[in-house]
């Protein structure tokens, strides 16, 4: 039986879809068979982030309504062997699917795939409940902002109330230079407040914008800090003990190094 992981956040725009796409690609790169489900019915986006938008024939609602078979609804990614996408329907409403149907679908997929990863819609309505219905593990994505952390806190409460205890935290779009000069919440601040296990810290990185423009996962880009952070995050999902990246830029001259030493006093 494969593992079902739901990626959620409460607040929109924090990087759920990009994170989902990259974890999926990274797991496939490690040799696992992965099914990604876009649960954001009406506002599908995982297809474009992965560059698979031109290959959609059927979607999740077609599948659930019996219009097509499981294997014809899943799109195979040609770059990452073992990576498949089940796209959301674009012209339907979130209540086109029930929690029961979603749960059955994840059970069905988990028989065939090592990992089933669900990209949850923003918000805490029906789409959110559907996305959680079959989850073994939940990953909460947040950014170092008051609004995003507040929503993450609310979502953690809702996830726990459903009896799911395997919850991991991903801090996305961190800007180490702002944290250092005291103008951004630090990872420690966020962990203190949310009190769940940290599985990943992803720095703000131009390479994400570039990869997303091209419809390619950033884990495939050379020399990308965000890509490296996402690969490490994936290793932690697999239970490996990986050190967190030192995201700070190295001080540039003699005086800068001295300053960085004294700044810690």
């Amino acid at each position, binding site marked *: 039986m494969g593992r079902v992981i739901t990626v959620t956040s409460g607040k929109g725009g924090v990087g759920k879809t990009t994170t989902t796409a990259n974890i999926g690609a990274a797991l496939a790169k490690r040799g696992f068979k992965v099914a990604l489900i876009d649960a954001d019915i009406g506002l599908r986006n995982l297809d474009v982030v992965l560059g698979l938008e031109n290959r959609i024939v059927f979607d999740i609602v077609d599948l659930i309504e019996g219009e097509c078979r499981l294997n014809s609804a899943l799109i195979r990614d040609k770059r990452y062997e073992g990576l498949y996408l089940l796209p959301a329907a674009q012209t339907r409403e979130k209540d086109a699917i029930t929690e029961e149907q979603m749960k059955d679908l994840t059970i069905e997929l988990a028989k065939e795939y090592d990992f089933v990863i669900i990209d949850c819609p923003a918000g805490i309505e029906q789409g959110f409940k559907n996305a959680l219905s079959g989850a073994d593990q939940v990953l909460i994505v947040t950014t170092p*902002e*008051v609004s995003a*952390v*507040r929503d993450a*806190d*609310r979502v*953690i*409460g809702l996830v726990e109330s459903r009896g799911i205890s395997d919850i991991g935290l991903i801090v996305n779009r961190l800007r180490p230079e702002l*944290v250092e*000069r*005291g*103008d*951004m*919440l*630090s990872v420690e*601040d966020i962990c203190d*407040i*949310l*009190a769940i296990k940290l599985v990943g810290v992803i720095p703000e990185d131009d390479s994400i914008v570039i990869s997303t423009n091209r419809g390619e996962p950033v884990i495939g880009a050379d020399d990308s800090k965000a890509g490296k952070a996402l690969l490490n995050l994936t290793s932690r999902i697999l239970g490996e003990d990986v050190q967190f990246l030192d995201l700070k830029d190295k001080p540039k001259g003699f*005086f800068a190094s*001295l*300053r960085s*030493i*004294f*700044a810690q*006093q």
Partner: protein
Amino acid sequence: MIFQFFRKKTQSDSSNTAKARLNNVLMADRLKVSPEIMEQIKRKIQESVGQYVDIDAADIEMQVEQKSSGVTLSTKLPIKELKKKR
């Protein structure tokens, strides 16, 4: 002084403001009570604890934490002066 010299001049602390604001909204969210009620709780604590030790309602810090054992309300009551009556 040498520390001051080497420390960057532009030390800002808007992250502390963010943290304090976050703590406030989360306290209200988690307890499902409004910030006014939180202020009332502080006043009541001041009234009752203040009979024995000298504390100021404005100094009381309250924090709601989500722990594995459940939601916990912790308060910090800085004492101004020990009252000399016994």
